[in-house]
């Protein structure tokens, strides 16, 4: 049998695992190893995440920090450090070359211009117009480098009535401006006396910044494709607040249509019910039964045909007055069982091929997520023994790809650690010149 025929006969899962297992990523080409990226992110994880992604796909990312290091290196739970670098940044220093350059100094800007002449991509997160005022904005750099893709990231963007407001970009501000915080969180049990925890609630991670970084990357790569077709670079303006706000199910149209806003419903979903977490004997189980057929399946598993009869259509199930009733009835069943019992009962129903599907899941604390074999087998979590920072644990990007998969080669570098390498490689500057630059406060 030829390899070709064998390919066709293999079970899909075996075939695809053999083809895209991240364990084999290191032998494969990189999608973006033809790109040089200058990352001037400052106090902003959106920029850092965007360039992490480019670096994970193989781009040569030159991370430019002020001489004392970017303030992001101080972002860490309770200030916990690993050799002087906070854990938030340690996680997003991956595959990047770290140089210092004090862009406050005109002389340093000349060095930056030289680097920018041959760069493909620039990412920056300063207040709008700062780079421009320094003579190193898109307007100036694109003259010598028309193929340049320049992405500026800022909560209020580069134009519009608020662009010049001067307020800073912070994750929490991106989150509250996005509109998502307002609809996330518990509804007060007693509206006259809300508890401090019954308020608009932000996503626990830096989701505003991560959404901003993700959109920036998507946009830069779309611009790259346009450049392949036309040779033209361009200027891109990304607001992390808008980036996160694009993740809204329905906010603006709901107001347009019904002159109302979506309320906070805790873990309930105003558009899908039941679809939530239920208390069980040993934690919380997720169960759903929204469409008529899946609702029938759920009621069959619970042995509650009466519930199905009582709330037969999606209009009955999406009526907020009925949600509490259904929730309590379903929870009676879940709280009498352990998670494993619930999972087994539901999956047994699904396997038997009855009508509809019920989808079970459980809430995992991240410490338990870390103990779950699946994520290690799939290289979602990976230990990396970094020459400088020692053994660290990172999460890999989710894509598994057959031809040009992403990968993490190193975790981070100390401030300015690659000065000699990068300035030598790119500008031919040797130790003597670097010493002078250092003396003049440039690096």
């Amino acid at each position, binding site marked *: 049998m030829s390899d070709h025929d064998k390919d066709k006969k293999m079970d899909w899962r075996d075939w695809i695992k053999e083809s895209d297992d991240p364990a084999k990523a290191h032998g494969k080409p990189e999608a973006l190893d033809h790109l040089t990226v200058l990352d001037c992110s400052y106090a902003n994880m959106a920029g850092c995440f965007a360039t992490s992604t480019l670096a994970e796909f193989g781009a040569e990312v030159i991370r430019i920090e002020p001489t004392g290091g970017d303030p992001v290196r101080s972002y860490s739970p309770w200030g916990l450090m690993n050799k002087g670098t906070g*854990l938030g940044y340690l996680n997003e220093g991956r595959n990047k070359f770290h140089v210092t350059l004090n862009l406050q100094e005109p002389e340093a800007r000349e060095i930056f211009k030289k680097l920018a002449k041959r760069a493909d991509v620039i990412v920056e997160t300063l207040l709008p117009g700062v780079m421009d*005022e320094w003579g190193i904005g898109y307007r100036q750099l694109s003259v010598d480098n028309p193929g340049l893709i320049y992405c500026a990231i800022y909560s209020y963007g580069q134009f519009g009535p608020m662009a010049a407001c001067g307020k800073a970009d912070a994750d929490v501000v991106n989150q509250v401006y996005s509109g998502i915080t307002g609809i996330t969180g518990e509804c007060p049990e007693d509206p006259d006396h809300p508890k401090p925890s019954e308020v608009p609630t932000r996503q626990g991670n830096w989701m505003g910044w991560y959404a901003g970084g993700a959109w920036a990357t998507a946009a830069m790569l779309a611009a790259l*494709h346009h450049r392949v077709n036309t040779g033209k670079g361009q200027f891109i*303006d990304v607001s992390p607040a808008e980036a996160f706000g694009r993740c809204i199910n329905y906010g603006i149209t709901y107001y347009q249509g019904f002159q109302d806003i979506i309320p906070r419903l805790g873990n309930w979903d105003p*558009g899908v019910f039941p679809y939530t977490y239920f208390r069980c004997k040993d934690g919380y189980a997720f169960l759903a039964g929204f469409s008529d057929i899946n609702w029938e399946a759920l009621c069959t598993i619970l042995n509650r045909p009466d519930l199905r009869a009582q709330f037969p259509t999606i209009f009955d199930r999406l009526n907020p007055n009925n949600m509490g009733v259904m929730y309590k009835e379903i929870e009676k069943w879940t709280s009498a069982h352990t998670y494993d019992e619930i999972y087994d009962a539901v999956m047994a129903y699904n396997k038997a091929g009855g009508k509809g599907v019920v989808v079970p*899941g459980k809430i995992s604390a991240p410490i338990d997520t870390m103990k779950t074999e699946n994520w290690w087998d799939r290289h979602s979590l990976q230990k990396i023994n970094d020459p400088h920072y020692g053994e660290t644990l990172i999460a890999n990007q989710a894509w598994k790809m057959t031809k040009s998969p992403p990968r993490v080669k190193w975790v981070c570098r100390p401030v300015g650690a690659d000065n000699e390498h990068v300035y030598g490689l790119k500008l031919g500057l040797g130790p003597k010149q670097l010493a002078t630059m250092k003396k003049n406060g440039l690096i």
Partner: protein
Amino acid sequence: MAGENYFKWAESVLDPSKTFDKPEALADIKVVELCTLILGPSLPAIMSEMGATVFKVELPGAGDTMRSLTPFAKFYNEAALGWLKEARNKYHLGIDVHHEEGKELFRDLVKRSDVVVENVRAGTMDRWKIGYRQLKEINPKIIYIALNGFGQWGHYVERPSYDAIAQAESGMASITGFPDKLPLKSGVWLADYFGALMGVVGVMAALAHRDRTGEGQFIEMSQAENMIRAMDWTWMYQHQTGKGRERYGNRDVSICPSDIFACTDNMMGIAAVTEEQFHGLCTAMGMPLLCEDPRFQTHAARLQEENAVALLDIIRSWSAKKSCAEIDKLAQKYGFAAHKVCNGKDHFEDEHLIKRNFTYTVDDPVYGEIVEEGIVPKFSETPGRIKWAGRPVGFDNEYVFRHYLGLSGEKIKELKENNIIGKWVDNPPGRKPPASWDGKSGIRLA
């Protein structure tokens, strides 16, 4: 600070009113979508905003379940609001891919396309003979992305999943919310939308590879793993300390100050993420000496539990006496970060977001005027856009089959009669055109 000049320049090159004078970045890219709900369909929606042509394939009749997803079962112009978010700019086709002839139509679309997006159970497409292994034979340049809960192989491959499960099993729900409350699911389908967005990034990287080598590839995307990647310092912290990351409410334990505070009229996110911003905030509060207090002098000091709690309390007492507008003004003057907690009404009325095409008005020939969350990245050369809001099931069959596949009117009629292709049913709601539709608007001549 930048001069006036910069903002005039930036507006002139990014001006949304000139959008339709300019080309689209992905104008040469065609996407075939065989997806339901949110994770899958949102991916081509995002690509369509950047110019890709998208063929959404649904089962004739009821089509995508997403057409039912709308808050409190309230449909607007007979369209589900959740569906509107991902229906934009697509050609909506009704093809029964269970039939061999339907599969053949699907393959014909793929032959002429660049990207396939699917979110059915792992291995299903392969079993149906329209999976990556079969499609790459007829189009070796195809970029094929499969999105689901847990991927194409591994311990959980049998498990179906939803957004809420990805949020739960990754640990994301556990780190969101307050310590005295349950783990909290986001108010939006976060793992779906963010999964789709990162899916776009994966496809774009594969496109970059194809632009260099001519080679297509397969991409798998687990939305749970994508959540795990987004949980910033969680894994570093747990590995270094052996302790679990918990829920800490609105306060950020890794940046101080950063929290959501009550003002006299609303709640407001306030943060200072550099020393300079912190000095600005202290000055704005009328307490410039605060930044010389040894407890608050450095970020490292401010992050210590006792100091952080003390500082946040000081800010809380200050904000409680101010309105959001007052604090916003101070943030502008002193350069710290602050914004009130916004809702759909705020976005609908926000002049800044309207100007920037985030709050986007689509004048749709079928569904009427729809205002929705619109364009995120503003491109100087290839601005994003929404051309139409969405279409009923199978609405674009005739146009696409004739225009893109070159099928004759007789052939199309035959496919219809054999129920290989088809259009909407009247029930459940959300499938058919609204009653206000005149029977012809939006139809492209086939």
